[in-house]
Each structure stands twice: as C-alpha cells, then as structure tokens.
C-alpha cells in the first residue's frame, strides 16, 4: 500500500505494464525528455529508451493512426494526446478506423491500443484546455471509454486498458491529477473495464457521475447526510461499455436519479443514462430524472468568474440533490 495521487498511479500502471511486456510502448508529443506536459511519463524514457518512449511529431491524426498500425503489428501502443481538446484532428482515425477495424474485418484484425487524454476543466485552461470529450466517443461502438476518478481505479484501469484487445480511450481528469490522493496496493491488481462502482451507498436518491464530479458529488452527499438525506453515489468509471445493471439497480432501490457531468448538458452523456432509466425502471421512479451539466456554451472560458459560472461545484450539486430529494 502506498499513498499516490492520480497522476502517479497512472504512471505506475504504465511503468509496470512496460516492465512486464516489451510490446508496450508510448507515443505522443513531449512524452520523452519532457515526460509529458503533465509529467505522467516522467522517468520512463531513461528506463525504457527512445524506441519505447517516442516523441511524436505534432500531428494527432498520425499519432493515433500509427498506433493503430503498430497495434496490428503485434505491439501494444499507448498514444498520448497532450490535451483531450487536441484529439479532434484524430477523430477520423479513432472513429472510422480504430473502432471499426474488428467489425469490418469480421473479427480478423483487431486494435489493442490505449489513447490517453487529459480532459476536464476548473484549471484555468480556457476553451481549448478544459474540454470534456466523453459524449462524442462513448457513442462509438467498437471503442471503449473509461474515466477513472481515484488513484486506485486509475491504476487498475490503465492496466486493464493496456491488456484489452480493443481500443480504449482513457480519460484522465486534469484537476484530479495532483488533487486526488488515495492508497494503492502494491499487488498487481486490475479494475475491470465495464463495471461501475458504488462509491457511497444511500437510500433516498441515486447520483450517477464520473471524473472530477465524483468528488464534488461525494462532498455534496456528505452535506446532505447532515440534513438526514441518504445519497447513493455511483461512479460510472466506464462509459462504454456502461454498467447498466448497477445503474438500474440503484434506481430500483432509491427511486430517484440525478446525473451529473462537467460536460455541456445538451447531447452530453447524461442523456444516455437518463434514457436508460426512463425506459427500463420507469415504474420505480419517484421523481423526474434530473441532469446537471455545464451550460450549453461552446467551451469553458478563461476568466475566473466565467469559469466558475461554467463549472459545477459541490454547492450547485447539493442544491440539485435537495430539490430532487424533496420531490
């Protein structure tokens, strides 16, 4: 057991996978000497050399595209996208290629690769260093999308992602990198892709969330507890595949659902969760399925008052919890 932050946990996970399997390599901008702009790969160049920690040209489409090719030639690539916002030029390679290769070849070819992307805001990153991208990619069959929130989950999931036989988009919330700490076992464990985790059990109301918002929801839930409201907080962790069973079970128990994400509300991933609940456990519902997300503006502004207005926080979340609980 050691106490790590999210960033260290991811680094450790990558390091251990690279030590265990020489097919694993990292390809991305500034991942070498610089150790990545967030320092996730710091120290790995010295350990594994320039054939396995490779500074890529400034070209996201070929970062992903080359990793797809490499994955088809018996290696296990980890592509790093410097900021999730900059995954956009690689959209074609991810969606039309990585995600469809197994299907289109009728199972003949597959693409075991990981795409790591630091996402999310509240870090004064403005429009292009703060974006949430999960809704776009969680819609894509053939792709897996995970978004861990704790060091334990982050390490366990990055290892599962590297081992997965299919492309996994691994979303790392930048604000959790150094903020969120937790104990991580020394043993070689995995967190399986596709399972949600009830991070807090409760009976009055279910909250579904992931990423930084998980921590805000837990904080808000604690506030409500003091007022006697018992909130269940489900960390989705894996958005595709989605753990529908855990979601529906929780609503069957509490009868109320609040979905919280940092991304813009309209067309966000919360719509999917809401729709599943509205269709499959309709009879259990004791209140309107409520979504909380960012306002529908193109992205998070830089100026602090605007960023604060854009971001959810424990207070705003607690208010929504209270309203729903009181319904």
């Amino acid at each position: 057991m050691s106490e790590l932050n999210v960033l260290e946990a991811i680094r450790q996970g990558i390091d251990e996978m690279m030590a265990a399997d020489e097919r694993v390599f990292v390809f991305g901008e500034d991942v070498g000497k610089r150790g990545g702009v967030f320092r996730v790969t710091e120290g790995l160049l010295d350990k594994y050399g320039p054939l396995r920690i490779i500074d890529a040209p400034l070209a996201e489409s070929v970062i992903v595209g080359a990793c797809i090719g490499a994955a088809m030639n018996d290696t296990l690539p980890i592509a790093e996208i410097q900021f999730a916002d900059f995954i956009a030029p690689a959209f074609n390679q991810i969606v039309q290629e990585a995600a469809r290769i197994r299907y289109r070849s009728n199972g003949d070819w597959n693409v075991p690769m990981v795409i790591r992307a630091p996402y999310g805001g509240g870090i004064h990153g403005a429009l292009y260093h703060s974006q949430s991208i999960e809704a776009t990619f969680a819609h894509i069959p053939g792709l897996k999308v995970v978004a861990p929130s704790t060091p334990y989950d982050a390490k366990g999931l990055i290892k599962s992602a590297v081992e997965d036989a299919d492309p996994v988009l691994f979303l790392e919330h930048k604000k959790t990198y150094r903020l969120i700490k937790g104990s991580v076992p020394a043993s070689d464990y995995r967190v399986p892709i596709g399972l949600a985790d009830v991070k807090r059990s409760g009976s009055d109301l279910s909250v579904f969330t992931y990423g930084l918002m998980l921590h805000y929801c837990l904080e808000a839930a604690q506030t409500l507890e003091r007022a006697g409201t018992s909130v269940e907080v489900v960390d989705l962790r894996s958005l595709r595949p989605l753990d529908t069973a855990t979601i529906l079970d929780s609503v069957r128990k509490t009868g109320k659902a609040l979905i919280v994400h940092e991304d813009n509300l309209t067309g966000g991933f919360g719509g999917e969760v809401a729709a599943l609940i509205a269709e499959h456990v309709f009879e259990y519902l004791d209140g309107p399925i409520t979504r909380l997300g960012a306002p529908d503006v193109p992205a998070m502004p830089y100026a602090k008052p605007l960023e604060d207005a854009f971001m959810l926080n424990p207070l705003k979340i607690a208010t929504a919890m209270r309203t729903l609980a009181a319904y």
Partner: protein
Amino acid sequence: MTLSAEQELLAPITLRSELPAETLREMYHYMALARALDERMWLLNRAGKAPFVISCQGHEAAQVGAAFALQRGKDFTLPYYRGLASVLVMGMTPTEVMLALFARAADPSSGGRQMPAHYGSRRLKIVTQSSPVGTQIAHAAGISLAEKIKGGDAVAWTSFGEGTTSQGDFHEALNLAAVHRLPAIFQCENNEYAISVPIRQQMAVNSVADRALAYGMPGVSVDGTDLLAVYEVTRRAVERARRGDGPTLIEARVVRLTAHSSDDNDRTYRPQRELRSLRQHDPLARFVAYLHDHDLLSEAEAQELRAQIAAEVDAATEAAEQAALPDPETLADHVYGS
C-alpha cells in the same frame, strides 16, 4: 532528390528483364487474372448481380510489379480499393475476391460487411481497409514503426491514388516515416483523376514524387504501365527499407481505363479524345507485347493461359454466387473481442 538518375536507368519495357521467364509469365498471369476478374465483375454488375464494382483496370502493372518485389507472408500490404491485382499476388484467391463481390459470409475480407474491394486478410498480412481515403497511409507508417521497435525486417507497402495525397493523413504519415526512417513504401497510383477531379485541380506540382522533397525521402516517378519498371523501382525501395535506410515514395503513372466505379459515368467529365486513347496505355497489352517480342510467351501459350483464367474466373464466380449470405444473427458479432 527525385531519383531521376536512377529513373533513367530503369528498363523501358523493350529492355530485357533479368527475371526468369517463369517469373515473367507468372507476372503476366496475375495481370491477366486481375483483368479478367475485373471485367467479369462489371458484367455481373450490368446483369444486376453485383450492386457495386470499382476497378483496377489500367493499374495492373503498377500493382503486380510492386507486389512481386515484396515477400508474401512476411511483408505487410495496405492496398486501396483499386488493389485487386496486388492482393492476388499476395495470395488472395479469385473465389475470395468474388465472395466479397457478392457479400457472402465466407468473404475473408469482411464477411460481406464491407463493399467489395475493401481487401483484408490477417493470414496474408493484407491489412483491412476502410473507405475514407488515406487512413491506411498512417497505418503503414505505424506498422513499420512497430517493425523498427521489434527489430524485424518486414516492410509495409501501401497504395493510394493521387487525389488522396491531398489528405492530411498522407502528409502526417510520410513525415513520420521519414523522421524515423521507417521501412515503409508509399505507392501512389496516379491516374490523374479523383473521381471527376483532374490532377490540375488537385495539385500544382508536375509529379506526385515531388512531394517526397517535403519529407526528405526519395521520391521516384515511374511509368506505372511498365510492369518491369515498377518492379525494379519497388525492389530498390524494399532493399532500402530492409537495410534500415528508410521509406520511399513511388509515383506510378497509370491510366484509369474505366469510370471511377459502377456508380460513375466518366463521359460527363472526361474529354472524348482522352477516352478514345486510353487503350493505348493498357498495361496488359504492353506486357503481352513484351513477352511476345522476347519469345517468352507464344500465341498458343497465351491463349491457353487465357482459357485457363476464364475457367478460373467462371469457377470462382460460381462458387461465390452459391455461397451463403451472412446470417442476420451475426450482425452483432465482432464488435469487441471481449
């Protein structure tokens, strides 16, 4: 940096190749087979039996020449939708090709899921292709990157049209391959059209090979209707790649003998005069002439070969047509491995 010196050394088709006669006849066999299959597909399309056909006609020499310089089962090929002749050389059978045309369950490329001409076979190291043009160029760079990481000496060969060189992926992939001196060969089959768009509206350079200058890799322009020239140029590129000296861009100048696809009608945008003169550049005819001129194939042998190919195409068509369509129950198979 265009290897124009090297280019001058290339045998025009009237020069004598040093390849054994048997190899030359085999090359001819593949060209003729590709042509026969391709023509049959159009017939099937016109007969309402195949909704979509896209041709390799006019590109056969470029493909057979290149593929003969590769090692089957070892090197990776990433051909594009005109790559019929190249995949035949790499080991795909006429029946397999026809299975794809008819979208049969046994189609090895996609089990009937993709349009015809989207070739793929893991066994043959023919990498599954998609329709968005140019994406495979990045995959070829990646395959050769992995090869370098692993310390192997296989090469990745990929093909695409001249229109496709306008895509960002072409640029990003060639640049990456040049920076890391990857064992990749980029074959542009320049037929001067992207559907209806002529090359003058596609690029302002005289040769696609010039684009190599932007990456610091050799760019070679070769007459792609001259099988032996393409073979020679590719052979050198393969040697270079295996030696660890890096990638090569090859422009094979070809003709598109057909409309873009069975959905197209090129008479609306191609000048009459051009349409009439196309057959003068037919790579198959040129190679037959070479074989005749060098007494490598008699008229009788040629006829026998053509008859044999016709029979092969008949058999392939029949076998494929009779094969089963995919079971709707399999629709959701192979989305994920687990």
